[in-house]
């Protein structure tokens, strides 16, 4: 175990929540509404949550077998040295790519909406700098920092939704299941991939101090983010109707702009960017921490901190190359590739690894929930 930190089950739950929701709340409603229309909230609440729970179950089962190792450390043990190391290396690359996507999401959002002429590199350097500083301090510090960010995040968005709630037209949420369950399933594809990010449990499990509560906190995260994301989606569609919301890139931003209380409380979109940045810094920090621990354990290094800096630079360069401010490329990735990509790395491969571990009787305890 490369990081000596210890986190409690509640901290784990909140960290995983931020990993899932920090970016999803802004990007998901529009993508879901395109497929599921007025039923979007059902996609988010039902189908995506079910998928998230499946991922959580597999990750906890794997964690129970190898309670003091991260995913990349026990891969060689399960698959044999060479294939294990190869898969670990592949996973590290996948994580670095995912981190670059988050960096890209951030710079594109801020570029399109707020700072039109600030070079995206500057925005990225600031966000990544803050996240990397957290990674240097270790997982324990990240979890505690998140304990401060999480209530602000939840409260802010709740207040935001409450302020715009009087504009909700319940008619916009009808008809329910007009075209059967198929659109709901289709709509759930992209949010499910986001909710599957609970698979960071594979990398965070060893730090948990009460291992027997792992499933509780993982399932808690999935359910909590399900309710949260469904509320955001339902309010968005209730206010804007699915026809308008699906045409907006950041409908939650439009919600914040639409708030008008007594003609005084208006133009609250800057408030949204505070929430966004706080969440994304935590999310990025967890991503960088996982990336560097994976890289270090794959390479057999003693300290994960030496890999943080190169990885951070790599993600900035990759996101600059791939996305930078190119919204079209990002949305192509998010809506076309990300679901399948996500299902593979979140559910399929860990599931297979678990299967192999069970068959080859690797790892400690039996799976018992």
């Amino acid at each position: 175990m490369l990081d000596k930190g210890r986190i409690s089950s509640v901290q784990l739950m909140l960290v995983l929540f931020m990993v899932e929701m920090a970016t999803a709340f802004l990007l998901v409603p529009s993508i879901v509404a395109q497929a599921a229309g007025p039923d979007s909230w059902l996609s988010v609440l039902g189908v995506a949550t079910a998928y998230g729970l499946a991922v959580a179950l597999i990750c906890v089962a794997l964690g129970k077998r190898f309670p003091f190792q991260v995913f990349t450390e026990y891969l060689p043990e399960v698959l044999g040295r060479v294939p294990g190391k190869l898969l670990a290396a592949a996973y590290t690359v996948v994580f670095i790519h995912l981190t670059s996507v988050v960096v890209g999401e951030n710079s594109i959002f801020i570029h399109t909406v707020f700072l039109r002429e600030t070079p995206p590199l500057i925005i990225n350097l600031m966000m990544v700098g803050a996240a990397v500083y957290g990674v240097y301090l270790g997982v324990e510090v990240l979890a505690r920092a998140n304990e401060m960010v999480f209530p602000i995040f939840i409260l802010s968005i709740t207040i935001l939704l409450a302020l715009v709630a009087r504009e909700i037209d319940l008619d916009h949420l009808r008809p329910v299941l007009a075209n059967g369950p198929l659109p709901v399933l289709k709509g759930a594809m992209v949010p499910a991939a986001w909710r599957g990010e609970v698979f960071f449990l594979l990398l965070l499990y060893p730090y948990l101090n009460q291992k027997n509560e792992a499933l509780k906190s993982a399932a808690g995260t999935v359910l909590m983010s399900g309710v949260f994301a469904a509320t955001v989606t339902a309010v968005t569609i209730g206010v804007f109707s699915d026809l308008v919301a699906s045409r907006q890139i950041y409908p939650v931003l439009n919600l914040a702009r639409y708030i008008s209380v007594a003609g005084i409380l208006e133009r609250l979109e800057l408030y949204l960017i505070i929430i966004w940045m706080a969440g994304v810094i935590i999310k990025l920090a967890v991503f960088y921490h996982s990336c560097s621990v994976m890289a270090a354990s794959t390479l057999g290094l003693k300290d994960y901190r030496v890999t943080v800096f190169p990885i951070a630079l790599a993600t900035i360069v990759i996101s600059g190359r791939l996305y930078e401010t190119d919204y079209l490329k990002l949305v192509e990735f998010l809506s076309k590739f990300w679901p399948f990509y996500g299902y593979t790395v979140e559910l399929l491969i860990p599931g297979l690894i678990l299967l192999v571990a069970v068959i080859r009787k690797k790892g400690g305890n039996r799976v018992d929930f």
Partner: protein
Amino acid sequence: MTFRKKFKIKTIVGLFLLVLISLTMTGCWNRREMNDITLSTAIGIDRVVVDGRPIFLFSVLAARPAVPSGGATAGGGGGTTGPRVAGVGTVISTEGETVYDAIRNYSMRTSRQLFLSHSLVIVFGEEMAKEGIGEVLDFCNRQKDIRERTWVVVCEGLARDALQSQPEMESITSVELNKMIPLNQSRASKVAIANLFQVTRDLLTPGKEAAVSNIKLFVPPETSSPIRPTGPAQTPGSPSGKGGGAEIQAQNKTFALSGAAVFRGDRMVGRMDEEETQGMLFIKNQADGGIIPIAFSAPEKNASFLYRDVKAKVKPVINEDGSIMFEIRINGKVELQEQKNAAIDIAEEDIKHAEELINQEVERRCIKAVARSKELKSDVFGFGEKIYRSKPKAWEEIQSQWGEIFPTVIVSVTADFKIEHLGLINKPIVIQ
């Protein structure tokens, strides 16, 4: 020793960070100072033909930078008498082949960058509205400065002239309009009300058409009004002997809200008068307050009631033969505000009778609105949407022909208003 050394390094690094952070805290990458921008408070969009080519005429009612005190106000020659109320706004218009082209052409006319974030109203000229506002709405939603709450109105004539008309209370036309539109909804409910988001949604939603406020310009009939043209008397409507022929300029007019401009698709197809608009607002649940005058056992109107808390329910019914009916129930509370010569006694049967008359009047207005919208073939009430929301299967079959079906639907309106208050006098004032 080592401690001191460490401490020193920490201090230096800390100071360095402090300076670095405070430098970056000062703001964004680049700044726009107040004296480098034009604050747009209202936008006007017209379609005009120049040299045989249709182009966009984009006008902005800009908040004018502080006028030097004591400077000459508007008027110039011609011997201005008395203080003219010179608005703090100034209208500047540019032309372009597309809307955004026209906006960027501002840099050829003025020294300041246009800043649209504070636009309160988007005014469409009549020709523009008739030709289709789809492109403009796309533009307004696409770019980030214009806000979803900006009011959308249609004017008679050119939007550029509407922006130049003079406000009567506020210092600038856009602020006056911005206050008038919601005020009317709670005071009279005789003007359609829609902001940018609502218009966009109504255009996107199948089975629903948009209706927005309509404004008209006129020379204030009050002779003391400072807006009226000075110099030779030119009373509108009255035969003006000399001064003759000269068209009255927009800056000598003021404006008023007047009914609704009704769209089919993105094209304006006609207008509704105040009564029809009120009927429409009743059905759309947007009538927050207003007056219903009735004729209580008299040939002319002799009592008025103020309505509040109006709720309308629209229930689509599809009969077995395929004909479509809408049952509309409107509930509300009214209070007596005035009456002539104790026409209404407070006796129970009189109250009942008055309620009946109120209901009849409300129903008449709603039916009138429905008739007008059928005439215009524009489903401003969202009846089609109601079918979609409650009977999606049935809607799928009729959606493509809704345009033809709508004028044939049967609409029944049942109003149920209750008299609740009588004001401050209990017994009528009887003139002996």
